[in-house]
């Protein structure tokens, strides 16, 4: 029970312990980077984390809601790729105005997610398998549009790609990073200040109790997957601006990074416990691992994956220990 005492000593709610651990890890990595490399603490290094990982932020936020209900969404990477592909095909080949294409694709992503949520809820199918099939469908549809990359030259997208929002002191963020920040703010508000957000937590805690309390379990589940699909489509638009191309091999394996960010951010995979803010720190940790590998220069890129795996392991293990202790506390 030492952890509980120390947590109480620090004035922390026990549910905040994983979040605090994540934050401490992030700070430790920054301190390590600052001592090892000159120029690591430059503000632009941190802003680049937001710029280069904008799409991961957005996808991971959507994934947080799904995991909070105890589900999982493996289709996000493919939906992202399908969005980049569709926007490129619609705008460049069909000559559609971005003003139509963007809302259309956002609605499409939400509808794709909602359909998966419906299948999961209505027919009691496993989220893992349904979203796996969704992943195949979306990736396959990408190839149906084109197997090659489609460059985007539309003036609106090019202007968005070049746009930099100055933050003073010679630093700036991209439009994608701004959208990511906005998404996070809205998501925090939804999760903690709306009836829908509280229902999500209740379902994750116990779907049966939530249903008995009269909460709309089915509608909420459908909406949660719709949010994840919407976020994936939004991330797809951000990525098509970032890359200025649509490609069926964009974001392969992104769902794993998103899940890793959510877990490292302290969200329990069994649902019910976790914070959107934690997920953001999770994404920052993944980003800073990459930055450290780049700053080092001699480390090969595969170390990123190994370190992410080790972190996942440590966090899942500590989650199990916390859960075990909580269960022991309840049974007393």
């Amino acid at each position, binding site marked *: 029970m030492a952890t509980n005492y120390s947590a109480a000593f620090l004035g922390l709610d026990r549910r905040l312990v994983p979040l605090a651990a994540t934050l401490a890890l992030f700070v430790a990595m920054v301190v390590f980077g600052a001592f090892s490399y000159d120029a690591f603490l430059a503000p632009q290094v941190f802003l680049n984390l937001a710029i280069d990982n904008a799409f991961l932020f957005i996808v991971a936020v959507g994934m947080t809601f799904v995991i909070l209900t105890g589900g*999982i969404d493996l289709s996000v990477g493919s939906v992202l790729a399908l969005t980049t592909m569709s926007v490129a095909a619609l705008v460049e080949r069909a000559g559609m105005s971005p003003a139509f294409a963007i809302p259309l694709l956002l609605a499409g992503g939400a509808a794709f997610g909602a359909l998966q949520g419906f*299948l999961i809820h*209505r*027919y*009691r*199918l*496993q989220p*893992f*398998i*349904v979203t*796996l*099939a*969704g*992943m*195949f*469908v979306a*990736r*396959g*549809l990408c*190839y*149906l549009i084109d*197997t090659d990359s489609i460059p985007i030259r539309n003036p609106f997208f090019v202007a968005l790609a070049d746009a930099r929002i100055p933050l003073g002191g010679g630093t700036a963020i991209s439009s994608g990073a701004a959208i990511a920040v906005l998404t996070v703010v809205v998501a925090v508000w939804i999760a903690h200040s709306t009836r829908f957000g509280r229902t999500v937590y209740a379902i994750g805690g116990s779907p049966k109790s939530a249903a008995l309390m009269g909460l709309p379990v089915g509608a909420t589940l459908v909406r949660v997957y719709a949010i994840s699909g919407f976020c994936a489509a939004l991330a797809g638009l951000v990525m098509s601006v970032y890359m200025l191309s649509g490609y*069926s091999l964009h974001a392969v394996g992104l769902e*794993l990074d998103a*899940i*890793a960010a959510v*877990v490292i951010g302290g969200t329990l*995979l*069994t649902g019910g416990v976790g914070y959107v803010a934690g997920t953001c720190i999770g994404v920052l940790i993944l980003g800073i691992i990459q930055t450290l590998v780049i700053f080092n220069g001699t480390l*090969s*890129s*595969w*170390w*990123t*994956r*190994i370190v*992410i*795996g*080790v972190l*996942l*392991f440590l966090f*899942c*293990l500590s989650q*199990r220990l916390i859960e*075990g202790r909580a269960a022991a506390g309840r049974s007393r």
Partner: protein
Amino acid sequence: MKRPLPTLFWPCATLALLIALNASVNPGFLTLSVRDGHLYGNLIDILNRAAPLALVAAGMTLVIAARGLDISVGAVVAISAATAAVLIGGTLNMDAGAEATSRFPLWFALFAALGAALACGLWNGALVVGAGMQPIIATLILMVAGRGVAQLITSGQILTIYYPPYFYIGNGFLAGVPFAAVLAAVIIAAVHLALKLTPLGLYIRAIGINPLAARIAGVRARPITLALYAFCGLMAGIAGLIVSSNVKSADANNAGQLLELDAILAVTLGGTQLTGGRFSLAGTVLGALIIQTLTSTIYSLGVPPEVNLVFKAALIFAVMLLQSTEFRATVRKLVTRPAD
């Protein structure tokens, strides 16, 4: 009351349908020819190519039957292939008339590769049984890190293997039949017999239906579950040997890519319930053959091979909905009109 259809009816029917479709499009599909004492033909080709998938899916079947899941098999295939390729290595010695050598003895490389795969399986099992993690999450860790480890082993290169004896595993023939297919058939048949002749199959089913009840009834659930994950890892290791021997190289990034999904699909197609309990090894083998035949069909129909993913997804949805009691209830309501 109608008699229920045999468990393997749907997988058999699907496979027969696919083969019939192929035969109608391509009249030469069913012909087998003998060249140099080896059997050749589309059907033999499918058997050969389905072998790694069938092995991995067989391991996956047992894990799923005991209420588990292993999504790291693709990464384990890459690790096994990388280990074998590094240890065999070998350079083409042009002076000695293009004679290729192996860095370590072949048996040592094979054992090391399988040992690495077995260790991966034990690691997964330890996380699930020892640490009590959810199977998806426990194996997700190795799925994420595994390809990094495989790249570490190969130093990020695609290793080419020059040692001809190693090619036998993926390209050789035994009694006229591809060796990989024979190997897969022998292993799966042995496992099938072991499950039939010992109570092990019953134990696995008991764990899958109710782990707690099984343990109280005296089934040693923990060691058995651990062994199943280890077995699944070993199967992925053998698949890695077959795959790398077949293409004579090890690609840490792409060997076994999406194999975990194909394996789960094969298991589902074969009628094994993803919620554990009921399982069928024979069904899984049929499932693997269906997936491989589907791939061949796509090629022979001239459809871009990438579209294969959409067909696979359609198959998953169909099988999933057929297994769902709620969906069957809905359909029954639609078909049998209410008496009013």
